[in-house]
């Protein structure tokens, strides 16, 4: 069925979207490190203004891209519930169809109440 073909693609896209979104936070940490290592004095109002805005934006990134948003959880919940409703379970669906999902997708799934067995997780490739 078409859903079978789509499931793996969608799960991987979700995994990658969440992963790359979460990575943005590291760049904000790096920006703060750069400012801290720069010759611009800590007391400088220019530096403080920029540093403050970096911190604010980093917080936004954390909430909207590092943490699992309501929309992200809703989608994964809906997807997994649909599978659960139409098959014995998500794990049976995955193992019966020899589908392995990536770790971040598996973690979101666990968060929304559908834990995935280790044998159905492809831990060797997290890209």
């Amino acid at each position, binding site marked *: *069925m*078409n*859903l079978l*073909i*789509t499931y793996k*693609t*969608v799960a991987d*896209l*979700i995994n*990658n*979207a969440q992963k*790359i*979104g979460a*990575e*943005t936070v590291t*760049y*904000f940490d*790096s*920006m703060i490190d*750069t*400012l801290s*290592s*720069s*010759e*611009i004095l800590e007391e*400088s109002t*220019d530096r403080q*203004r*920029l540093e403050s*805005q*970096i911190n*604010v*934006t980093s917080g*936004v*990134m954390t909430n*909207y*891209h590092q943490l699992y*948003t309501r*929309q*992200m959880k*809703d*989608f994964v919940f*809906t*997807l997994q519930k*649909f599978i659960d409703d*139409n098959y014995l379970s998500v794990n049976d669906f995955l193992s019966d169809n020899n589908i392995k999902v990536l770790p971040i997708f598996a973690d979101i799934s666990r968060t929304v109440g559908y834990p995935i067995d280790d044998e159905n997780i492809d831990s060797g490739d997290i*890209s």
Partner: protein
Amino acid sequence: MAISANNFIVVYELGSLDSADFAAYYAEKHGMNTSTSNPSGSTGSSGDINWEVHGQLLGIQLTDTTEILPSEAVFNAQLLNPIVDAISSSVELSNLNIWGIVLGYNIPGGFYNGDDIVSSTSRLSRLNFSFSKKTQNKLYNRSVFQRFDSTDATHVLICSRIDAPTLLQAKGYVDNAIELNDQGLANGTFYIDQYSDRAALGYLDYQDILSDFNDNLLPTLNLNTWETTFQDPYIDSVIPFVENDSFVWSWFTDRSHSSFFKQTNALRIFLYNADYDGGFTITDEDSRRWPYLALSAGYVATAGAMSNPTIDGFLNPNSFFNALLRGATIGEAFLFSVPHVDWTISLFGDPLTYCSFPASDPVDEDVINEHEAWNIISKDLARSAADLYKKESDLKSVTLEVVDIITSDPSVGVDDISVDAAVTLLYPANDLYNNNKEAVWQSQLKPLVDTFFDFPRLRYNVQTTGVLAPNVNDYLTEQGFKVSRLLSDISSSAIIEEDNLLDDGWWQFEFTVYDDDVDNYVNYHFILEVASDENFVNILMTKDSYSIRNWTYEKEKNTFVDLTFSGVSSSYIGRKVRYESRQDPLISLDEYLTRGETYYFRVTQYNLETEEEYILREYTNIIYS
């Protein structure tokens, strides 16, 4: 741990009261250990040469004390082998972390080798290596400064010679050194002579080094300076005399007179005249060579060649004074500035002396220049935008995949479950996508991007940039920076001019030079491979830095210059190398990559001379332009 007297041994002539007296005097002045805890383990012989250890003092019963020994074999028998044997077998010395050797009164200064005279200090600095004439010094002119340490000591030791026509004079040299260490501050004039009567290619290279030093580092020492003026390429400009002097750095005019040194109220710290035989003797009281004259005039330390070191063997003032400025001892500074070991140049005087300058403290290597900091932040900000651009793209694909459940291939047919799935998933998929669309993530970044672009205007409203309170375009133009179009698209307050924007798909890969051949001084080139997958199955391009085009390296902190065919030497370990992508439709060249995609880069350093390839290093990079 910084270098100290505890890391040194003093070599003297066993059986000579004067030589032993000098060694004890030096040791006492530096608080070195001279006691013997285990007499039975402190004596030995090497061939027919006996040796004896007293704490950090090593006496060798020389049978030949001429200043220049006739051959390497004699040198090995008289000096090198006894020192090696004593260090390995005496209880005292084998427990020391030996980083340096002082050759004391009446110890031979070198040996003949063909037409050359190899200095004892240079040969002994490579004590644990077989003789290899004119070997590149691994520690020479390190671009990233670091103090001498235990790792360095595995390559080269700090060796110096303190000798004189009389014991009294030799002790006087030590007294001068102690006075400098007590007083500390360099307070005299720096005399520099950039010009000689030599005009061949190698000479001009050295003149360039001196000019570079004169123009850049010397002013930062904040000393009074006196410099010769250029007259004619065939006339050697000379310093007529010095007074109230602390440093002299000159070249040629290889003989002088004691009257060159006038009265001084300043501490005389280091004199170097680059010539061919200044170090031939320091024990001949009639000598008119510079090292002897300098020491006699009160200079704490000096250096000179015992025979022609060749132009590329002259000391480099940039690395010497960069080291002193950063708190290194004269012994360290010398070692960092001498291009070759197992060669002719010798350090004379106390290697444990140091001085400070009336200059402000040098900027630490780890401190980032503020403009460079802005540029680095610009790239990180662009990377975060590229991440969100990619995330949006992925979530858009999710929505399309959901739609495709029922529309992708009509020939397959659509079952009821698939229809249900599409209907069920479409709303949350669309909701997820809408929550990550361009307008949304751009609005999340916009306050920061606006603040960031406004930073130069606010920052430089009273400070020294070309334009007062520059807008972001003025700033980018002045600094030679470009920013990603991703950031330009976000900002509402600044319209970035086309010339200041990176091309879509442009990339630059930057990596650090590693010390892949720890034992040798190497000229490195690099092979860069770019792949679309982490297993490097699909390699998109391979670039060899030997082609040099679009390759640059960090010659000095934050200063990148074009790579040359000779590559990047061991002196630049810790510095960066860059490759910048090219696009030229005229020759169908397109190295640009896809915005928002992550690519895999791996770099192999290789030895230009032997073509030996070292380990692969892998990196990932998102295209943020």
